[in-house]
């Protein structure tokens, strides 16, 4: 076997067990600020994988696996556990007013089934049926403040203001695709668990399963302060807007494309990735023949935006699994893109040495 082939054979594979874990993560309810359900899954998965595991004051899971050799780079890998969703604010007789948590388009909501609270009580975001709407009404967006979550009279007594809700979508594998809610960022969480399981011995591996990313990168900010790494990688999911245009013209704006591999960030709303880390990822992809794509520079952001400004500065880069229809009831991602993301980061960590920080940032 050539050295390259030998290295490739060590890459953790996405198989039944990994997909089953992703399914459990996707189906769990963990709206920003109430990530307990996903945290519980994460804690159970990683309990034997790290030397030091703790839950911090905001609810981040910080797991450190010590290096077996010196000198070791302290590398933080962050994946947020939280998802966008809803918070119930007031109501009676099983009808609840709610607010959105994180970036949700109000047009996505009417008629969607949801799960409410810790007990996953079923509900639906009510919509006026077409029988009773005028043509004018159907042209306009229904604002969130007139929508209600209807949980039925029976369960209404078990629900309180402040309870979270999320889309009721159940995870499915459809051919080459993974379909589910909250795959932004349960894909990142599942990837980080696999990386922790297969972390290289020469790195001080700091896994941060973060909270409250969707409401402003709040968990990552304190996680980075506590871990104080020498460099960091944020693992996330980013929209793929690669649908064909109606007129067949080439679309200049798509953010990322499905089937093109992990998306590497150069610039988003919150971060200008460290060029040394971008180059390391591109070299890694080339060396091991892993497909990857550059995410189109623009808006959006990841935990990297909070991490790099912590303390005296931390070099960062973000890598995302592309997915269509992010922040709606169902995201569609590809198994191959996930596998390639895992492979890219796995090799990038294997080949990472302190020399990467020797030249100054360009």
């Amino acid at each position, binding site marked *: 076997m050539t050295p390259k082939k030998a290295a490739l054979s060590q890459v953790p594979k996405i198989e039944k067990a990994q997909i089953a874990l992703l399914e459990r993560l996707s189906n769990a309810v963990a709206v920003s600020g109430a990530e307990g359900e996903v945290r519980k899954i994460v804690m159970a998965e990683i309990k034997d994988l790290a030397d030091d595991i703790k839950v911090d004051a905001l609810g981040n899971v910080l797991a450190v696996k010590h290096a077996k050799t010196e000198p070791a780079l302290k590398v933080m890998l962050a994946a947020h556990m939280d998802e966008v969703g809803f918070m119930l604010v007031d109501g009676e007789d099983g009808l609840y007013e709610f607010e959105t948590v994180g970036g949700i388009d109000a047009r996505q909501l009417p008629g969607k089934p949801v799960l409410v609270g810790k007990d996953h009580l079923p509900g639906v975001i009510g919509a006026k049926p077409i029988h009773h709407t005028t043509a004018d009404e159907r042209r306009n967006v229904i604002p969130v403040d007139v929508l209600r979550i209807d949980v039925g009279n029976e369960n209404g007594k078990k629900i309180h203001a402040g309870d979270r809700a999320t889309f009721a979508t159940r995870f499915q594998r459809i051919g080459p695709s993974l379909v589910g809610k909250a795959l932004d960022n349960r894909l990142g969480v599942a990837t980080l668990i696999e990386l922790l399981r297969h972390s290289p011995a020469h790195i001080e591996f700091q896994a941060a399963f973060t909270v409250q990313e969707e409401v402003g990168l709040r968990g990552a900010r304190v996680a980075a302060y506590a871990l104080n790494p020498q460099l960091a990688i944020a693992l996330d999911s980013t929209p793929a807007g690669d649908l064909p245009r109606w007129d067949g013209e080439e679309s200049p704006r798509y953010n990322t494309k499905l089937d093109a591999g992990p998306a590497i960030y150069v*610039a988003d709303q919150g971060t200008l990735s460290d060029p040394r880390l971008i180059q390391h990822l591109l070299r890694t992809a080339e060396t091991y023949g892993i497909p990857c794509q550059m995410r189109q520079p623009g808006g959006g952001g990841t935990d990297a935006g909070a991490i790099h*400004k912590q303390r005296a500065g931390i070099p960062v880069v973000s890598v995302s699994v592309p997915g269509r229809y992010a922040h709606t009831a169902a995201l569609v991602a590809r198994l191959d893109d996930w596998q390639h993301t895992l492979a890219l980061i796995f090799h990038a960590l294997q080949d990472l040495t302190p020399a990467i920080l020797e030249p100054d940032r360009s």
Partner: protein
Amino acid sequence: MKSLIKKLVEAVGPSGYEGAVRDLVKAEVGKLADDVRVDALGNLIVRKGNQRSDGLRIMLSAHLDEIGLIVTHVDDKGFVRFTSIGGVYPRTLFGGRVQFLNGSAGVIGGEKIDSADKVHALDKLFIDVGATSKADCPVKIGDLAIFERPMIDLGNRLVAKSMDDRVAVAVLIETLRTLENSPHEIYFVFSTQEEVGTRGATTAAYGIDPDLGLAVDVTATGDTPNGIRMAVKLGGGPAIKVRDAGMLSDPRVVRWMSDTAEAAKIPYQLEILEGGTTDARPIQLTRAGVPVGCLSIPCRYIHSPSEMVDTSDVQNSVRLLTALLSNPIHLK
């Protein structure tokens, strides 16, 4: 000093990619400093002096970076779509020339628009690099460019791209050269990523943990035909910032700066800026909080490829900064 400014403003250094400008500054300050280092975000941190019993740890900050463009897409015919790095006004773009970090050049064109009075939105513009296909296009997604524009010398006035904030970088270098016998431990910070949200100064301030902070940056003026209402004018002397959209200067720092200018007979103006902010904001907010102020160099046409400053304002900024740092400071 004009030749130093010319060298700095003609260098290429969009936010996040300030290496070339930093190297120029390093070459200028190397012999003058007690310590020179580069931090994780690329800030150049130059220390001069050790803190005497009557001195403070002071952080000065002028940013290295300039606004620019970044490639988002190359189409099948080789046209390059882009978005902005920092506060780029689309109205300054059409017909402009750009230079990429990789050495390629191009001109900005735009899609057909209905009316000659309208301005192209950013996503209706593209860069023509002379390519005919994706294959022969010399740039790719994620490549950065800046506005190509040599400095012109109009005598008392200088015009260039990136006067914001290279003219302040020059002011810090000259102050470092001029300053003798300061009681203070002074950190001259040539910061990165200011134009995308004062990110470099955020981490530099945390690392330095200063007793006092001063940003040196450019500010707008109200002295052009039908311009904005603002008391600052070109040639009126350095502006002492009272407030901007992100920061209220410590009133004691404003008094200290004004009193020093008056004692040294240096002309100055007070600045109230309604939009924008400077590196003074993250310095003020670092750790447990820091008293800060900002010395601003009046500048016309900020964030256009032709930013104009007055040479007397530049000279007087060096004089004022030197006077401020030469003696013990008692804020009151």
